[in-house]
Every structure is written in structure tokens, then in C-alpha cells.
């Protein structure tokens, strides 16, 4: 589904140019649960942003379901994001003044749907993440775990092909982290949703099917390749 070929990424800071990603090549298939691990500053968030169509400024080829999206315009990226991918961020990224329902409905509204037709879908997703009856609450009055559930609900509301999660448990305590991980695994196993997450928590990574390790912008190990090699 996702095919990265020799991706290079630079950050410019004043006169300096940091080479963040070095020749990354990576394939992810439908239904995988992938953890990308690495030190902070290793470039794993940069990589996941590219995979999730958040960052269109990179060198190399990115084929998504066979489409060469490295050639897409900014507007096409917006549509791609809206229809194919759901995001879960470490600090939830919810609109604080908007109710839970408003937040969850955003991707559908931006897809051009009517408020009246999406009410049912939003309720269903909130039930799925265990937030039945929280529709009218404001995110700022909820606990971290609950907020992360809202953000997962928002990520899956439009039936995306895959989820991108950047340190989804980074701001949560161990118990809540496990609840969120269980939710991810449930989505992956029951609905076949592809999930790619960045984490530096070994316990979280251990629960994923495949672990990709990045050091200094290079893929140093990929458990799938090890497995494939062992076959």
C-alpha cells in the first residue's frame, strides 16, 4: 500500500542544512501494525509525517497505492489526507473551544458532508472508543486518556485506509497507555486498519507486529526483513 523509495529530507535552519532522512526505503502493506522506534531527533516523526501526507517537501519517490504522490500539489495533499489517513498525536491536537462532536466531525465536514447526515456516524465512533455520552463535553474538561480517545475517534471517523500515530501514549500514564494500545490493536485486528506509530516506549513497541528502528535518519533494523530473511 505504502511504498517509499530512497526518501531524503533536509531541514534548513539559517545557512545550515540538516540532512534528516537518508535514503529511506520502506514498504507497508494493508493491515500491518508497525512501530517506528528511535532516539529523539532520529527523524522518526519526520518520516511519519511524510508517510501521512503531512509533509510534501521531500526528495525521493512515494507511491501510495501505486500513485506517485511526490508529484502532487498542496491541494491534492489536503484531499489525500482527508480521505485516506487518520492522525493521532502525542498532545491530542483537539480544538479546545469545540465540543467533542465538533472535533470528531471535522474530517467529515471538510469532506463536504452535511451535519445532519454524519451525526449517526459520529455517535457510533464515540461508542467504539468508549466515550458514549461525552459528545457535548469540551476537550479541556476531559482527562488525557479521554482526549486521546476523542482524537482516535476523529482519526477513524472517515474510515481511513491507515492511521498515523505520533507518540500516541507519550503523554499518558502506564495504565491509560495500555488502554489506548488495546484500542489500537482492536482496530487493527477487528477492522484490519493499517496503523503506523512512532514510539520510544519499548512496552508499546513490543505489542506491534513489526518494529522499524531508525538511528540518525537511517533505518537500521526492520523486524519484518529479519523475519523474511529467516524464512
Amino acid at each position, binding site marked *: 500500500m505504502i511504498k517509499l523509495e530512497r526518501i531524503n529530507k533536509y531541514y534548513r535552519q539559517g545557512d545550515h542544512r540538516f540532512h534528516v532522512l537518508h535514503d529511506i526505503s520502506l514498504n507497508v502493506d494493508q493491515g500491518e501494525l508497525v512501530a517506528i522506534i528511535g532516539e529523539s531527533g532520529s527523524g522518526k516523526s519526520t518520516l511519519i509525517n511524510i508517510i501521512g501526507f503531512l509533509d510534501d517537501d521531500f526528495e525521493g519517490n512515494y507511491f501510495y497505492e501505486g500513485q506517485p504522490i511526490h508529484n502532487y500539489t498542496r491541494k491534492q495533499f*489536503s484531499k489525500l489526507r482527508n480521505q485516506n489517513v487518520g492522525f493521532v498525536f502525542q498532545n491530542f491536537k483537539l*480544538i479546545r473551544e469545540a465540543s467533542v462532536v465538533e472535533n470528531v466531525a471535522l*474530517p467529515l465536514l*471538510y469532506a463536504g458532508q*452535511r451535519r445532519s447526515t454524519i451525526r449517526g456516524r459520529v455517535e457510533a465512533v464515540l461508542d467504539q472508543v468508549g466515550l458514549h455520552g461525552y459528545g457535548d463535553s469540551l476537550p479541556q474538561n476531559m482527562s488525557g486518556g479521554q482526549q486521546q480517545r476523542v482524537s482516535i475517534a476523529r482519526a477513524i471517523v472517515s474510515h481511513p485506509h491507515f492511521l498515523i500515530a505520533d507518540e500516541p501514549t507519550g503523554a499518558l500514564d502506564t495504565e491509560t497507555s495500555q488502554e489506548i494500545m488495546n484500542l489500537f490493536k482492536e482496530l487493527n485486528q477487528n477492522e484490519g486498519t493499517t496503523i503506523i506509530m512512532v514510539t520510544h516506549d519499548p512496552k508499546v513497541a513490543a505489542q506491534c507486529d513489526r518494529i522499524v528502528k531508525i538511528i540518525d535518519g537511517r533505518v537500521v533494523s526492520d523486524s519484518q526483513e529479519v523475519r523474511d530473511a529467516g524464512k
Partner: protein
Amino acid sequence: MRVSELIRTALRSLRANKKRSFLTIIGIMIGIAAVITILGIGDGITQTMYDKFGNNAKRGQQTTEIYYTPDNENSAVNGFNQQDLTNIDNQFGGEVRRVRIEHETANLNTHAEIGDTLKRTTVSLLNKPTTDVKMIAGHNLSAGQLATGEPVALMKESLAKKQYGTAQNAIGTTATVGSTSYRVVGVYRGQAEYSTDGDENKYGVDLLLPKKLYYQGDTASQGNTIKLTFDQGENAGRLSRKVEKYLKKNGSAASQGTYTYEDMEKALKQFSSQMSIITSFISLIAAISLFIAGIGVMNMMYISVSERTQEIGIRLAVGATPANIMMQFLIEAVVLTVTGGLLGFLGGAGLAHLIAPLLSHSIGSGIHIHAHITLNAFLLAFGTSAAVGLVFGILPARQAANKNLIDILR
């Protein structure tokens, strides 16, 4: 995203920041209110002047007057007779719809012999009985007396007392105006010469006489004022000047006096053009205040954009296009200014209605100025405020739309 959703989103974020939104609205409101007040009063004044002095174009036709002044003040010569009217009819029949001698009925200045003294007297004429005077002695003129034109008269109390000692004594005496002697049948309480709103008071005169008798014989077919009636759309002022010119040459009494047409319409046009100069000057000042208010809007929108960077990032991440983001902020700006514009319109209209009576009071002399708020003023308020929103909202909105998603999310 649907437009209705964009508007809903914009309204919600404006509500989230009530105080700041309100302050921004006030700036626009004051600017628009100032313009609307000035326009309302300015239009009102122009309107009042036209109503009072114009050619009465509103009633489907226009009328003008030409009057005659004899060179010798005491001369009894009349400027217009039937021959003049026929001549005008022949000469200008196509353009002038009707011409007739205007018989004044109120506040005529004339001489009357009362008792045995001849003195300057003011006279008003009656067609039908009036209840506007209060009788002190004798009785009022009856409908019958007026209809048949009996030589009867009512006299003012002060004149009666001065001439005959008491009001009662005046009853039965005669007053001779022109060649007709009138029998005084009643005395009425005197009234002020001018009414409270400054017009001449018809009943403030010395004598009240039957109109039918006053204008009879020669006087009915002669006079010093003619009234010209034109169809709407004709250039009444220009035609009246032509008639005036014609009369100066060919009028029956051209050698003993002058015919004058006072072109009020021309004066009015001058007046209204002066008004519009004043109006546009003050509007210029108002425009400057709107410009400043617009900068206020821009300032607020820039602050709003930088405060809500996270929100913009979130929206972009879940699939908003840059155009969506730009529209959202642009709508916010326009909603702010249009709200200010509409409030300003209401405020300005109210203020104009409040100021207009004060103004007419301070001018006095019977001029009633009504604030005149037109549909155009409404459209102006609406259009200007929307335009201010668009012009001053576009840069902040573009900045919002062009934000780099990765920089925000990092």
C-alpha cells in the same frame, strides 16, 4: 467544506472571543453611524427644501409663479389680464399645460377706509365659514353670506377697540376696501401674525372678507400673479424664464412695471449641490475613520491567526484545504464588519431622527427637517462594511492559509 459550515465555524470563534470581537465591531459601527447620520440629515434637509420651495414635482405636475411689481408702489395697475393669459396660451400652449391668475386669499396688503380714516390693512379672504377665529361680538360669517358674496366683514378686536372704543361698537360700521363697502358683522379675537412654526397666519389679519365678493368684476380677471402648470418631466424653470422674457416684452403692463420669475428650483439645485459638498466632505472624514477601523480589524485578525495557529494546523491535518482556511478567516472578518455596519446603520438612523428635530428647532421659521434614511444609505452601510471586511481581512486570511503544516505540528 460547505459554506454554511464555514459560517458556523466563523461565528463560533467570534463568540469564543466576545470582548475582542465587540471592540472591533465598535470601530466600524462608529464610522458607519457617522456616515448614515450625516447622509440622513443632509438628504432630509434637501428634501425639506424641495418640498417647501420646489416646483411641487411630486404631485404629477409642476407649478411655478410669475409675479408683477408695478414701478409705482401705489399704482393700481394689474400686471396680468385675460389677454395676457390668452397670449401665453397661444405662445406656449404646447409646453405650459395651464395658466391662470393666482388670487391670493391670505394676508393681502391693501388700504381700507375704516370709519373715516384710510389706513394700511391686512386682509384675508374666506370661501367657507371658519371656526379658527374666536368671536367676541356679533356673529361669524355664514355659509350663505360667503356663497352669495354679501358685503359683510369680520374685524379684529384690537382694530375695533382702537377705532370704536369697544368691540360691540364696531358692529354695524362699514369698512371700505377698494370700491366695495363691507358691513362689519362680527369682531374676533386677534391672533399672532405668524404661527408658531413661522408661517404667516391667515387669521392674524385686520379684516376677514368673502372671497367671492372681493374678486368680482375686473379684479376677477386681473391680478399680479400668475400660476403656470407643467406636466412632469418638462423643464419648468427654463420654460418659466421664457414666459417671463415674453411678458417683459409683450405683457399688458410691461411699460409700468416688471415681471419676475423667481427660479426657486435653480436656487434649490445650488443649495443641494452645496449640501452634497458638505456631505461628501464629512463623508471623507468618515471614510478615514472607517479606514482606521479597518486597520483595527486587520490587527485583530492577525492576532487571531497567530493565536490559533494550532487550530489551523489541526484543520489542515484533517483535510482542510488552504482555501477552506482562508475562507474561514475571511468570513470572520466580514461577519465582524457587517455586524458593525448594520449596528452602525441602526445607530446612525436613530441619531439622525434624534438630531433632525433639534436642528429644525434651532433653525425655526417653520422648517421641519425630517431625517431621510434611504435604501441607498442601507446598501451603502452594508456594502462599505462588507468591503472593509474583505479588504482588511484578506491579508491575515492568506497568512492563515499559507501556514506550513509541519512547522505548526512540530
